[in-house]
Structures are given as structure tokens and as C-alpha cells.
């Protein structure tokens, strides 16, 4: 049995079903991410684990203990909130020490543990300040230290970085990752940002409309999506236009009943017109510095091609004729119900 085990979790709000029979298991020390668009049920699941909303039915156990029988404040679960939830009337030190007091920890130990937690999030110099005037990044660091310092059985994070600016988001997610690995607390992380999920997780659970689409490592989720929803939600996806040209392209792959063929932009390449491949015309060229996106109109669709290291001179201009090289192994086929049937990698 896994450390955290969620079985057939179901939650309905009146007629709306937010979770329909979700099964998840998380190992000790694992960084597990719930990824999905808003309304997919990821926050509902997280809040059910924390105890803020009870499930309609289902079971949640940690280390064999049935959590649903434990009131929220006895669950020993650390939580980091989207809006930081830092207590504005307490100093940084007292915010972090807040959870240690009901645990009857002697004052000297509180001091050392809070100091260590603050050092881990680089806030040791601000211990005596009030958090009100601090930046979002600093406030979330307080939130993180406060949740960790109680050595909880489980750490829950509800979109902790979504209110921060892009650069800080990347910086802080690396720190969260490092700290979590150091202390080894099993962590459930909720986000709608696929790049964040890929960067930070041991395993990702992609959710949609109250059910699980796929659970896997970041590599599996991105490189081997099991459903069209996962393939489209994580990364970008070119959908091929059905027709004679597409049929010709995929005829040798041995997948007969595909509803939709697709390919990732970075698995396409451009070459000189006349080379082998699909002929097309450039309709747009977007330069992004470390990469460029070239949109090419071809018989198999208007496809985005991602070019790494585009260099200092524009590689192509609107109206150029080019040849599109398609690696057949990179093609993905999806059935009518959205399930993946092709095996391209």
C-alpha cells in the first residue's frame, strides 16, 4: 500500500460533480502534481485531503490511517496557499512558529526550528518584520517555511506560484523542489501551468472534468501522452487536416482507425524546397530569441514548426516556399474517444 492512498474519491456540489471516482497513490517523499485547467477538480481533491471540504464518498488514507475520520486540525498536513495566507498581525518569526505552539514544543526548540526553516527560504534577516509590506515572493516563502516547520505528514500546495511574476515563479519553483528533496516530505502540488508541472514533479496527474486523464513521470506525460486532452494540454500540438495528403503520409504506419493525427512542433523540420517531404508556404514567422516558430501552410494543414537556435538572421520570410520534413515515428494517432492509438515517440 502506498503512503497516500486515495480510492474512488467522489465529490458533488448539488448537481455538479467535481470529482468522479478518482484513484491516486503517492509514495513517501514523492513530489506529486495535480495538473489541469480550472474546474477540473484538482483543488477540490487537494482541499479534501486537507479536510476543508469532505468527500461525498471515497477513502483517503495516509500511512494506513483513514484521514476522513480525523478533523482537519488533527491531520498534521502542511498547506501552502495561492494567496499566501500569511497572518498580517504576526511577525515573520511568529508566523512560522505559529504551528509549533499547539504541538507543545519547548521555546528553545521552537527558536532553532524556526531559524532553520527561515534560513531554508532565505528569510533569516527578516524574522522580526511584519509581513504586510513584503513582496509576494517573500510572503510565499513565509508560507512555505510555516508549512514545513511542523514536519507534516504531507505537504499540500495550492497553485502557490500563480500570483508571482514569471521570473520569480521559476526561481521559487527551483527552491521548492530543492527544499522538498532535502526534507523528503511527500508533496501534492496543484497547478494549471504545464511547464511548472514538468519542471517540478516526480509524477504528474493530469485531470479534466473531475476524472484522471493520465498519471506518469513528466517524460511520459509530455513524450507519451495517453489521450488527446493530455497531448493538447501539455505542450503544443499540430493537428493534421484529414484528407488524401495526410492519408498518404500515414499509410505505412499500420494504424487504420485513427480519428485524428497530430505532431509536436519541435518534431518537424524545414528544408530547401524540392527536398523530400511535404511542400508548403511560410505564412508567419515568429522570432523568440532562443527559438523561432514558423507557420507553414501545407496540404496536411497549417502547421507550426519550432526551430531551435534560429540564429541572428531571419531563416525564412512570409511567402517562402519550403519543404517540411515529418518524422513518421513522431506522429501520434488518436481514436474517436480521444484515446491514443498510435505509438510514435
Amino acid at each position, binding site marked *: 500500500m502506498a503512503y497516500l492512498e486515495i480510492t474512488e474519491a467522489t465529490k458533488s456540489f448539488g448537481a455538479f460533480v467535481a470529482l468522479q471516482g478518482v484513484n491516486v497513490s503517492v509514495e513517501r517523499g514523492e513530489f506529486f502534481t495535480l495538473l489541469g485547467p480550472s474546474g477540473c477538480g484538482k483543488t477540490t481533491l487537494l482541499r479534501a485531503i486537507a479536510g476543508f471540504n469532505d468527500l461525498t464518498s471515497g477513502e483517503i488514507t495516509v500511512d494506513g490511517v483513514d484521514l476522513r475520520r480525523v478533523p482537519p*486540525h488533527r491531520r*498534521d498536513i*502542511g498547506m501552502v496557499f495561492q494567496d499566501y495566507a500569511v*497572518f498580517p498581525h504576526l511577525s515573520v518569526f511568529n508566523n512560522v512558529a505559529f*504551528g509549533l505552539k*499547539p504541538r507543545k514544543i519547548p521555546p528553545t526548540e521552537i527558536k532553532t526550528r524556526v531559524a532553520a526553516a527561515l534560513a531554508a527560504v532565505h528569510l533569516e534577516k527578516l524574522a522580526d518584520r511584519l509581513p504586510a509590506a513584503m513582496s509576494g515572493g517573500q510572503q510565499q516563502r513565509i508560507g512555505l517555511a510555516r508549512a514545513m516547520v511542523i514536519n507534516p505528514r504531507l505537504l499540500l500546495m495550492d497553485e502557490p506560484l500563480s500570483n508571482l511574476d514569471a521570473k520569480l515563479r521559476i526561481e521559487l519553483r527551483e527552491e521548492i523542489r530543492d527544499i522538498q528533496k532535502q526534507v523528503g516530505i511527500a508533496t501534492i502540488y496543484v497547478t494549471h501551468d504545464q511547464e511548472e508541472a514538468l519542471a517540478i514533479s516526480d509524477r504528474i496527474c493530469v485531470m479534466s472534468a473531475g476524472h484522471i486523464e493520465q498519471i506518469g513521470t513528466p517524460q511520459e506525460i509530455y513524450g507519451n501522452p495517453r489521450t488527446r486532452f493530455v497531448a493538447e494540454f501539455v505542450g503544443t500540438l499540430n493537428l493534421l487536416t484529414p484528407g488524401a495528403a495526410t492519408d498518404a503520409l500515414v499509410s505505412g504506419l499500420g494504424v487504420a482507425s485513427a480519428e485524428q493525427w497530430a505532431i509536436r512542433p519541435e518534431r518537424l523540420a524545414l528544408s530547401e524546397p524540392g527536398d523530400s517531404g511535404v511542400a508548403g508556404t511560410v505564412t508567419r514567422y515568429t522570432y523568440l530569441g532562443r527559438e523561432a516558430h514558423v507557420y507553414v501552410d501545407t496540404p496536411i494543414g497549417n502547421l507550426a514548426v519550432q526551430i531551435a537556435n534560429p540564429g541572428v538572421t531571419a531563416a525564412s520570410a512570409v511567402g517562402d516556399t519550403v519543404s517540411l520534413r515529418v518524422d513518421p515515428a513522431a506522429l501520434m494517432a488518436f481514436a474517436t474517444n480521444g484515446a491514443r492509438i498510435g505509438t510514435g515517440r
Partner: protein
Amino acid sequence: MTLRLNFWTIITILTWALLAVLLFGPVGSVLLSSLYGSKGEFTLANYVTFFSDWRFAQSFLNTLVLGFGALVGALLLGFTMAFCMSRFRIAGSRFLSLLSILALVSPPFIGAYSWIVLFGAGGVVRAGLRSIGINMPPIYGLGGILIVFALKFYPFVYLMVSGALGNVNRSLEEAAEGLGLTPLQRVVKISLPMVFPAISASALLVFVLAIADFGTPRLLGRGYSVLATEAFAAYSAEIGSNFSMGTTISVVLILVSLVFVALQRYMSRRNVYHGNLINKPTRIQLKGWRNFLAHVVVYVVALCGALPVIVSVYYSFRKTNGPVFQDGFALQSYQRILFNLADVVRNSLTFSAIAVLLIVLVGTIVGVLVARRTSLNTSLLDAAFMIPYVMPGIVIGIAYIAAFNTGAIVLTGTASIIILSIFMRRLPYTVRTTATALRQIAPSLEEAAVSLGYSPFQSFLKITIPLIVPGIIAGGMLSFVTAINELSSSLVLYVGSTMTMPVRIYLLVLDGDFGTAAAMSSILLLLSGIAVYIAFRFMGRDEQALL
């Protein structure tokens, strides 16, 4: 869990019981009393009399004229002031704000009397003008009441509208400018609609306060009768006192207030704009005659509004011989209060303090109930608490007499009845501010405390309570200002031993002893000022909270 549920159920029941005894009961008694004749028979005769008697029809009309006149005057002064202060750089703007606060917390109707001292039949200013050959009419009558009302009530409009004007995104006006609108068109087509909810809310408040005001028309009216004065006259007439006529007038007065509250709610419901505040408005520096004009306007309005306060403080230090002022300054008026009227000051302080303690205690608990236990029950409760908003003080007074004069609970002539009437009138404000403050605290704060090992009740005590306490103390202080200045309900409810400062001032003014009245007003003003200062210390300088 079941225990907590029980706790809140008990609180809900107690709240309804409180409302039943202190609000529905008295209002019901008023209604009932108006429907019975002198022999205890059920009759609509009182209403027939009201609507057929020329005298009542006239006072009904007068009330509306006064309400709308005050509304127009206060809007004109208040909006001009708000616009100038929020859009132009005005030197000494903090001083001007202070003057408007002075006007706001000044004891009731002392304003009217100060104007009489200056512009009345024997007024100082009129006499001065007459000596240089200018004859101006005395301030009595409708015109005088309206001038006093406009200057007394403009701070409500000023504070509410300037708050709203400060929240209009500047980009909107810049966009209008870019589209080719002239400055005047921008104000009329963009700024005015954006602050309309604030304007209509403040207009309503002025209307309701103006038709409830009893002292000003009584002193300045010289025969200009309104419903509030008629109700008091019907109640208090030594000979031929007609209590059921008093309650009939009260019911009409409540209905008029209700109609306007409903109207205002209907108007502002469709006009609430939520803008972002990325681009806050800035104040521009006017040049030349425009700058001069803006300064003259705001200083004249603010100084005239605060004039009664200045006059009464000045006269409180004047030397007197009996009720007659002499040349020079002395502390005689204060000595008289100290030696003869100390019990009145003590009454006011104890009544207000007890009322405020009750208001804070009950108001906070009920506020939590309203904010946290949302259900049909609590939204009904929220609505029930609107009732005291529209109840003029004189009506509350008459209602309490009607309810507690006979029957199960007899309170007339006690201090309790005055304290309870103040408590009931101010309770809704505290309930509302507590509920608003609680709704502004992110639920994640308490959840964070729960996740850290505190039970929900401990989380509430350790996190939520400390966060709302400054607001509660500030609200309590502002309730104290209202409580200690309360005149009209106390005037109906007092007996010799329970006389309060505003009642004493009213009687002193009627007796013509302006020196003592001025001194007592100054003491009242000082007490109010201290309370406002403490409130501002706890919540930051926020004039809006005074409304």
C-alpha cells in the same frame, strides 16, 4: 460540531428575540396605537384626520420640501467640495477635512442656534450690518432651515462622493479626453455616472436625516411645522396630549423614509461599476483665477459648515451675567456646568458608555453570525437590521414609550430605556461593519491556522479576532459619538433624573441661556473629538467611517 451548531442556533434565537423586544415590538406598538381611538376602539380615524386636516397635510408637504431642499443644497455644496478636493491641489486640504469632520460631529441643532446668534432677530452680524445701513432679513423660516441643513449635511455628500471620485480610474477620463470630450463633458458624461451610486446613497442619507431632524425646524422654523415637530408636539402637549396622533405621524414618517430607502436601493442597483484601480486619479494644480476661485469656494463652504462650532466655542468662554453676555472672557459657563450640571454630563457619559459596550458586544457576535452563517435566516436578519436606519429618533422615542409604558416590561422614566434606544439605533452599523470586515478576511487565513493544528474556534480567536478588533474599537468609538450626541429619542424618553447633555442643551437654548449651552456643546464636542481621534488611531484616518 453539534455543539458549535447549537451555539449559533442559540445566538440566532437570541438575536431574533432581541429584535422582537427592542424593534418589532415598539414599531408594532406604534402601528397599533395609531389604529386605536381614545376609547380603545379600532379605527382609522387618526389617518383620516391626518389626511384631511389641512395642518397635517401642510406639515407633510413641508417635510418633503425640507427633505428635498436639504438634499439639493447638501448635494450642491458637497459635490462641489468633493470635486475640488479630489481633483485640484488645495492648500490646507487636511485642515478643510478637519473642518468638515467638525461640522459632522457637532452637537445637533447647536448649529441652528449659532446661526440665530449671528443672523437672528437680534443677531450679531445683522446688527453689525444694520449699523452700516444694510438691512438683511433674519434667518428664520424655510430659507434659514435649508441654509442650515445644507451646511450641516454637506459633509455626508462630500465624504462619500470624494471617496468615490478618488476611485474613478483616470484612464477612463483620459480615454474620454482622447475621444474629444471637453472637460465639462468629461465630468458630466464620465465622472458623474461613475460616482452616481455614492451620490444617490449620500442624497438618501441627507434626505432621511433632514426629515428626521427635530431641533433645527423647531428653533428656526417659526411656525414652519414638519412631521417630526408635529409628532413631538402631539406627544408632549401639556393639555390635550394626543398620543395616538403622535404615533400616526410617526408611521407616516417611517413610510416616507422607507420609500426613499427603497428608491435609492432601486436606483443604485443598476449603476454599480467595478473598475480596476491601476491608474488612480491625481490632483492637478490650477493656475490664476481658477485656482483662486476653487480655494474661495472650498474655504467658504468648510468655514460656514464649521461656523456653529466656532461660534459656540467662542461664546462658551464669554463673560456672562445670567443669560446676558458681557464684554470680556471668563470661565463662568463652565463653572456653572461643573457645579450645577455635573450630573447631566455624568448621565451622558454612563449612558453612552454602557450603550457602546452593549453595541460592541452584541454587534460583533451578530456580525459574525451574519457574515459566517449565511442562510435565508441570516439574510432576513440583515434586512431586519435595516429598519433602524429609517427610523427617525423621535419615532424611536415614541415607539419605546408606546411599548414600555405599560404591559410586561415597564421601562419609562428609567435610564435603561434611553440606553436601549441608543443601543438599538446604532446596533445595525456595528453588525454591518463587523460583517463587512469579516468578509474581507480571506478564508485561507483561518484554513492555514487549521492546517497548522488549531481547531476552527481557536483559529477564529487567534487569527480573525485580532484582525477585526481595531475595526471594532474604531466602530465603537464612532458609536460613542452618535450615542452621546443623540437628542431626539432622548428628548421623548428623559425624565429629570435621566437628562442627558443634548437634552440639557436644547432646554438651555429654549431658556435663552446660550452661554451655558455653548459651554456644554463645547464639552460634547471635545468628547466627540477624542472619540474620533481614538477611532482614527485604530483604523487610520478614514473620514468615510464617520458616515
